[in-house]
């Protein structure tokens, strides 16, 4: 139950063997099988072989040497099944590895498996997976299971249940931050473009951002540093300058100079009034205030700010994302790869497309494709996609204005509620979309943000107390290092009681 940075030190000091680490991890994965965190678990003998190789080698300098890591099944991994949790890619084995995954492998980490998720990254519960739902390790009591969040729920649950020391997911509208919040761990989404999307099975191209799950901010810096850097395979990938690279070293420097009680002197934190909606539960509002107090105690100045276009964020997102998704998913036609309709009947070309795609895609995916097609259709384009793009610009400008006025960070809750029951049925399919209300505006603006577990709930929520509650910290574009520094500060002061190994029982 150590953190990544702690076990990394032990490995480098040869205090512990990688083989032991991997063995422990494999045992934990076996124990936590009921959580359904993984779609594919890599063969244990080959993992142990990798571990032995590292133990026998002289060189342990690589950044993440010997660290077991989970990879969301939306990332292509060479020769290892990659499904995007869909029947469409049930048996798909890519011929190449995504850039960010390759960089993690090159840093010496050991990929233990591909984690479960919402199908094609569409959802915030991880219930829509073709391979069954993921269960939140905070609530394993039969009949009272909770969602881990989504779409990267498997990655979040894997890290929270100690099945890996870190995991990567992808965040389009909150798909890393929200499951991190629901699983009580750190979820980091850098600026759009900071991490390469090459090899990430696309959902919404202008929003998809690779993200990182760990159990501490320090761990996050280590993983981030291994992944960051421009990739010419991705035209939207940007250079990392000194404000958004070498975050581990920057954090160490920050820690060494930090003075408790005044470490955040001169830092202005914005609290957006429009995020304080009536629907926000008292639990969350108190949590928010708690976080504000913690930062104030460290010397930060708290300022009320206005982001007037916030209320249009969800509608804007739920036009742009499905529109781009419907386009990105056109390629799944059963001809080149993926699911193909099997029939002895002679079909017309259109029938072939329709049946292959209807069989291969789940309900939520089909729903979003239809929504997207509608928003892009000639008669609706101006009123939907066209307007949404304009609104997106206005939302971006809201944040720009705040940061230009001297605010360095914005603090908000990550989710409107604690993690809810899997059995909870919504009366209409779009109700689930309201989970994203605090994460989506930041995705539209392309800003870096991190979700931090702050404390466990005192009140009962749907039959359970002691559930993880998290806050979200947002910074200006390309200020990852500063964001992580202040996040560390909040983490230290919050002193969250993380999920213990003993608490995970079946």
């Amino acid at each position: 139950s150590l953190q990544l940075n702690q076990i990394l030190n032990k490995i480098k000091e040869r205090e512990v063997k990688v083989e032991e680490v991997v063995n422990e991890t494999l045992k934990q994965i076996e124990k936590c099988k009921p959580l359904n965190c993984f779609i594919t678990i890599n063969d244990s003998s080959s993992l142990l072989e990798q571990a032995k190789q590292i133990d026998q080698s002289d060189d342990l300098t690589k950044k993440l040497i010997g660290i077991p890591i989970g990879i969301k099944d939306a990332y292509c991994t060479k020769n290892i099944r990659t499904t995007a949790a869909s029947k469409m890619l049930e048996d798909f084995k890519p011929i190449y590895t995504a850039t960010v995954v390759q960089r993690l492998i090159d840093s010496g980490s050991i990929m233990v498996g591909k984690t479960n998720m919402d199908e094609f990254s569409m959802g915030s519960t991880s219930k829509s997976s073709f391979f069954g739902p993921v269960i939140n390790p905070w609530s394993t009591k039969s009949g009272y299971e909770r969602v881990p969040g989504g779409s990267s729920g498997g990655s979040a649950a894997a890290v929270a249940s100690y099945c890996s020391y870190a995991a990567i997911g992808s965040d389009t509208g909150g798909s890393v931050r929200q499951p991190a919040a629901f699983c009580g761990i750190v979820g980091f989404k850098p600026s759009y473009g900071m991490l390469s999307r090459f090899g990430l099975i696309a959902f919404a191209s202008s929003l998809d951002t690779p993200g990182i799950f760990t159990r501490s901010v320090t761990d996050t810096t280590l993983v981030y540093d291994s992944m960051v850097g421009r990739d010419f395979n991705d035209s939207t990938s940007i250079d990392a300058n000194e404000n958004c690279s070498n975050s581990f070293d920057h954090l160490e420097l920050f820690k060494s100079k930090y003075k408790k009680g005044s470490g955040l002197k001169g830092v202005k934190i914005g609290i957006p009034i429009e995020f304080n909606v009536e629907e926000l539960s008292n639990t969350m509002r108190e949590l928010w205030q708690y976080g504000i107090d913690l930062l104030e105690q460290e010397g930060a100045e708290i300022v009320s700010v206005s982001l007037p276009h916030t209320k249009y964020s969800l509608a804007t997102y739920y036009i742009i994302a499905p529109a781009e998704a419907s386009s990105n998913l056109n390629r799944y036609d059963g001809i080149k790869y993926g699911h193909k309709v099997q029939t002895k009947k002679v079909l017309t070309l259109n029938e072939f497309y329709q049946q292959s795609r209807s069989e291969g895609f789940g309900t939520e995916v089909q729903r979003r494709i239809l929504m997207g097609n509608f928003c892009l259709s000639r008669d609706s384009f101006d009123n939907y996609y066209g307007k949404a793009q304009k609104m997106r610009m206005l939302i971006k400008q809201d944040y720009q204005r705040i940061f230009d006025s001297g605010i360095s960070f914005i603090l908000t809750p990550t989710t409107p509620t604690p993690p809810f029951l899997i059995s909870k049925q919504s009366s209409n399919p779009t109700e689930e979309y309201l989970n994203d209300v605090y994460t989506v505006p930041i995705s539209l603006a392309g800003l870096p943000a991190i979700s931090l577990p702050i404390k466990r709930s005192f009140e009962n929520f749907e039959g359970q107390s002691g559930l993880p509650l998290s806050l979200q910290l947002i910074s200006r574009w390309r200020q990852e290092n500063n964001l992580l520094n202040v996040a560390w500060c909040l983490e230290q002061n919050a002193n969250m009681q993380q999920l213990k190994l003993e608490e995970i029982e079946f």
Partner: protein
Amino acid sequence: MYRNLNIFRSYSTSWESVIGVEIHAQIKTTTKLFSNAPNSFASLPNTLVSLMDCSYPGSLPSLNTRCVSLAIKTGIALNCKVNKKSYFERKHYFFPDLPSGYQITQQSIPLLINGHLTITMPDYEKTIRIQQIKLEQDSGKTLSDIDRDLSMIDLNRAGTGLMEIVTEPDLSSSNEVAIFIKNVIGILQTVGSCDCNMDQGSLRCDVNVSVKRKGGKDGTRCEIKNLNSIKFITKAIEFEVQRQIKIIEENEIVTQETRFYDASKDITYFLRSKENFVDYKYFFEPDLLPLEISENEINSLKNRLPELPQLKRERFILQYKLNNFEANLLVEDNFYSNFFEQCLGLKRCPTKIANWIINILFRLLPNRRECTLTPFQFCFQVKFVIKLIIEGNKEPIEDIVENFNSQSNYQNLNFFCEEVISNYPEQVAKFKSGNINIINFLVGKAVKK
């Protein structure tokens, strides 16, 4: 049925044809537009396909800037304005040879707009406006004639860069269209952005044809596709114009259609109706940044443009005293304008050389570009061949003229030369008695055959 539109015109000058042209020119780069797969013709199927070209999950486009440079040079040569910021968009439809289910193209803001090209017809000059030139991906190929039950998809061509050159409907006859396309080919070859090989499909043309009575309102236009030679383009236009005129004269209505040209029957036939329009759901390509070109880049490309055909033609007329007709023909093809000037380096008689090229090479060689004679061989040895035959030399021509194109051409040349010699004994005698220049007369006669 009248085949020659000019004849038709003199009988009924009340009809006008309104024609627009869309030229798809494959950009001559070593790799494709958004992927680094090789761009080459005639490879084994599906061997030039990168992740991007078969739309593999997780693949992303990466712009080949050389394609952009060549397109800009082409546009400048066609007097276009460069849009300093243009955008790529996705055009969606489902078809097996379009792996992503969308084509990356330009729609609302293309790279180049508002150009023009002035063509020289026998009696007049006309300026044809170029609406736009846009960059886009080529699709793969669907082959349905190899196997009765299967459609074969070859993605080698998928993702190759294309320049789509679209004119306003300023053209009024099949002849104008032919001259226009030849001029565009000349420019593309000179700039080096396309090898314009219509047989291999590196240059493809669609035409939009409508007719109207002089002074009347515009007619409905039909699009004709599948035209892979200038000859077929001309014939298809002529057929289509008459088809439409006949329909209107019979008080019927021309419907907006896409038609194919059948070369064997010399007709256009209905392919699909344009009335059920396809909604392509265009939106800006999110995986690519807007295409931004600076003033400096534009100027630099402008300065690196070689001498364009128009200027070359004027120079040939001025400098070498060629006439319009000769100058046009020579300038049409980059290879031959260079060949001509190289020959001039060896033998300073431009009119004669021009004459020889036009009357000998262009007539003898079925595909003008395949002349493998060097300028030296051409200048000194064709005459030599005839001289030798007259002198009774029975040596095989192969030994005298190396690398001439095909056996059949040797035989033709030999045959024609022999014929001429037997037909003009008087001139042969004059030659044998020392009048060397008479050989030109004989050469001229040989060539006329």
